[in-house]
């Protein structure tokens, strides 16, 4: 725990220093907005990747390091020496929440104290990450900030407004109870606190002053046990869960629903508008990206969603690997298919970019039947988009089960 003296010192910088800090924070906020505004797709993942919380949890969960996550480790390194440097100088969410907190203070609201909840959220997430399910990764402040832009990109989708509403709810919470977010809830803040403490802990152990109980170690053990329990329960629940159609290159379904930070980068980057926030699936995959092929399909010449994911929940997929990803597999309902009624149609076969659909004559029923070759098909959904039947498409891409 930090002593009140330290806090006094830190929150009372000189006037020029305060001005400088405010300018830097505003500059960082503008930079973050510019990155997330679809100016150039390659800038999009930078914001989320700055978070060491996302970086470490993703590293544990996927056991692989996404290049852009190096940024997160740089921030983590800074935290070793300057606790909460990132929060005070750079975090765009921090600036928003701090402003709300100042307003609350002016309204004479009592600030909240204690970062126990944040520490638990952090430890549960990191612990569960070992089972591939970083449960509360979506609470990362940079992911929340990125999520704000979904509403701007697709203002007519109700689900796109949910992240913005969460953000606004947190702002209001900060007015009512100042410092609620940064001090008590933010797992990224808790992570930086933890990192800053690590060198001191070592020193303490070296000096052998073991008089006060080591809260951190106990908490770590308890947290990890709890995390394993929660993750195991989620895993058990996930077994019976229907799978979803994920963007190309997405990691396995169970990991994905937890690893995805809900930042919405992929949704905004998709030129075809086929990625939507999931609202119909199980609660664990709420707001994660799912695909719909009703109006468009996943183009063979595009890998943008894989490039903007901040933490590899959607793994980078080079263009030449695109035919080999497996989004899903189309199933034909011959009760609806025009060929079953002997009507003239070749739409799905014509528009399949991978030539994975053949029409085979079924001697017994004396009709043509579309047959999908699973070795060629990557589930891009071109067939579903092209299918002329209404209101339900006769050929629909279903997730692999």
């Amino acid at each position, binding site marked *: 725990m930090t002593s009140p003296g330290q806090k006094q010192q830190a929150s009372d910088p000189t006037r020029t220093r305060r001005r400088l800090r405010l300018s830097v924070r505003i500059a960082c906020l503008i930079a973050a907005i510019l990155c997330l505004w679809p100016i150039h797709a390659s800038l999009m993942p930078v914001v989320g990747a700055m978070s060491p919380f996302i970086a470490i949890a993703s590293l544990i969960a996927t056991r692989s390091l996404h290049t852009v996550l190096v940024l997160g480790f740089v921030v983590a390194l800074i935290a070793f020496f300057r606790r909460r440097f990132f929060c005070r100088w750079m975090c765009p969410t921090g600036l928003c929440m701090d402003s709300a907190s100042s307003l609350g203070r002016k309204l004479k609201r009592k600030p909240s104290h204690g970062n126990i909840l944040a520490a638990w959220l952090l430890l549960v997430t990191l612990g569960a990450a070992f089972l591939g399910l970083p449960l509360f990764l979506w609470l990362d402040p940079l992911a929340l900030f990125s999520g704000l832009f979904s509403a701007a990109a697709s203002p007519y989708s109700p689900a796109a407004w949910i992240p913005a509403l969460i953000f606004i709810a947190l702002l209001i919470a900060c007015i009512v109870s100042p410092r609620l977010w940064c001090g008590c809830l933010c797992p990224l803040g808790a992570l930086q606190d933890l990192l800053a403490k690590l060198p001191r802990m070592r020193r303490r152990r070296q000096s052998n002053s073991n008089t006060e109980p080591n809260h951190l170690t106990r908490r770590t053990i308890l947290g990890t046990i709890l995390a394993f329990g929660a993750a195991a329960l989620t895993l058990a629940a996930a077994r019976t869960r229907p799978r979803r159609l994920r963007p190309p290159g997405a990691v396995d379904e169970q990991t994905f629903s937890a690893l995805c930070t809900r930042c919405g980068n992929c949704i905004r980057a998709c030129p075809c508008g086929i990625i939507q926030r999931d609202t119909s699936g199980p609660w664990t995959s709420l707001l994660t990206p799912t695909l719909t092929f009703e109006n468009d399909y996943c183009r063979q010449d595009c890998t943008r969603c894989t490039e903007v994911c901040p933490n590899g929940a959607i793994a980078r997929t080079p263009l030449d690997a695109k035919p080999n990803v497996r989004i899903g597999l189309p199933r034909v309902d011959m009760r609806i298919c025009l*060929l*079953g*009624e*002997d*009507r*003239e*149609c*070749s*739409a799905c*076969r*014509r528009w399949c970019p991978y030539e994975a659909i053949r*029409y085979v*004559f079924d*001697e017994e029923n*004396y*009709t*043509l039947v579309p047959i999908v070759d699973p070795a060629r098909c990557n589930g891009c959904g071109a067939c579903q988009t*092209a299918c*002329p039947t209404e209101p339900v498409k006769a050929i629909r891409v279903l997730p692999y089960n």
Partner: protein
Amino acid sequence: MSKRISRRDYLRIMGMSGLTVGTAAVFGQSTPIQYVGESGFQSSVIARNKVQPNRSPALLANGQVIQPQRSLPVLTQTDVLVVGGGPAGVAAAVAARRAGAEVTIVERYGHFGGLWTGGLVLLILGHIAKGPKQVCQGIGEEMMLRLEKMDRAIINRKPGQNPTVDAEAVKYLMVEMIEEAKVNVFLHCWGVDAVMQDNAVRGAVFESKSGRQAILAKVVVDATGDGDVFAAAGASFEHRSHNVGLVSRIGNLDRVDTAKTSDAEKPTRMGSATPIKGVNWVNLTGPEVDGLDLATLTRMELNHRKFIWNKMQTTRRVPGYEDVYLVETAPQLGVRITRILDGLNTITLESITSATKFPDVVGVGGASSAKHGEWQIPYGALVPQKVDNVLAAGRCVCCDMRMADLVRLIPNCFVTGQAAGVAAAVAARDRCAPRNADIAEIQKILRQQEVYLG
């Protein structure tokens, strides 16, 4: 030089045949019927003990059947000869005539319309692009407008919809349009060969009840669907397989008592409505085969006929469907794709996805729904790579595998047919090979004929 030789050749062949009927003087008038026999009986002797003149039977020699060399009578000569009287052929003939050429059309059956009427493919499918916009204008649209004015000739004529016609109404309308345009017609003529001079087609050879004859022409439009003329002329092509089916019509559907049967038990594949009350036309896709193979075509006819009859028996056993009956199976087998010309240009799927604009555009094709944009048809897709004086029209124009299923649709056959007709008329008028025809002039005439060129 070559022109002088060709003219001399015309005269020589015609002189030898001694049968110079139907020459230019006859054009523009409907040929009067030659009534024979005034005996008072319904039948009279035209000639006694007659031996078929101009015979040249094949000879069996050393186990081989040899067709002796012989000269053929020339039935007529013309500016533009259209082989095949389907949607593409009729559109080509009318368009060429309206563009000022003398036109002769020959058709192997006794009626016009090809698969549209003889094949009972009654659905006008493939004239819609994003919008929904009807891209098939010109003669195709004229036919649809005229059918609208006729009694029970067309239904579902609404923007974005695929209309269905009555085959007999179409047959009647096509006779009307061909006669109005003053096109010279020969039915019951099966085009069997090309008349060649060096690398250029100079006409075509036909088999009919009057024997094997030739028609000479400045330009030939191959609207046979199978590309019979350009293949005979030696133009290279892609030989493809496709589904071969057989359409039928079923009747008394207005007498079906649906209350007698649950939805699950209702018979499927009952086709779609036609302008005739209680009558549906029923499509059949059939297996993918080689539509040029005689044994296969025969087998398809036999199998499909059995299937259609047996299917009807199953249908009639369903309570409430006892009165349904098979009106007819189509006289013409539903061959979809056989030969595809190797043209100067190819219609590819890319032309839709990247909305390609061709400088030599002669038409715009569509699809069955407004799902995607229009696709331009370049003139080069109708022109053979090497052989001269023949243009492809209809389903056999140069296109890739994926586009063939759009190219072969009836409205798109109107479009390629009209384009080929106008191009042939321009080439014949300017006395040049179709590949050198004045594109701007062709486009100008097509626009005058209200064709949509994008």
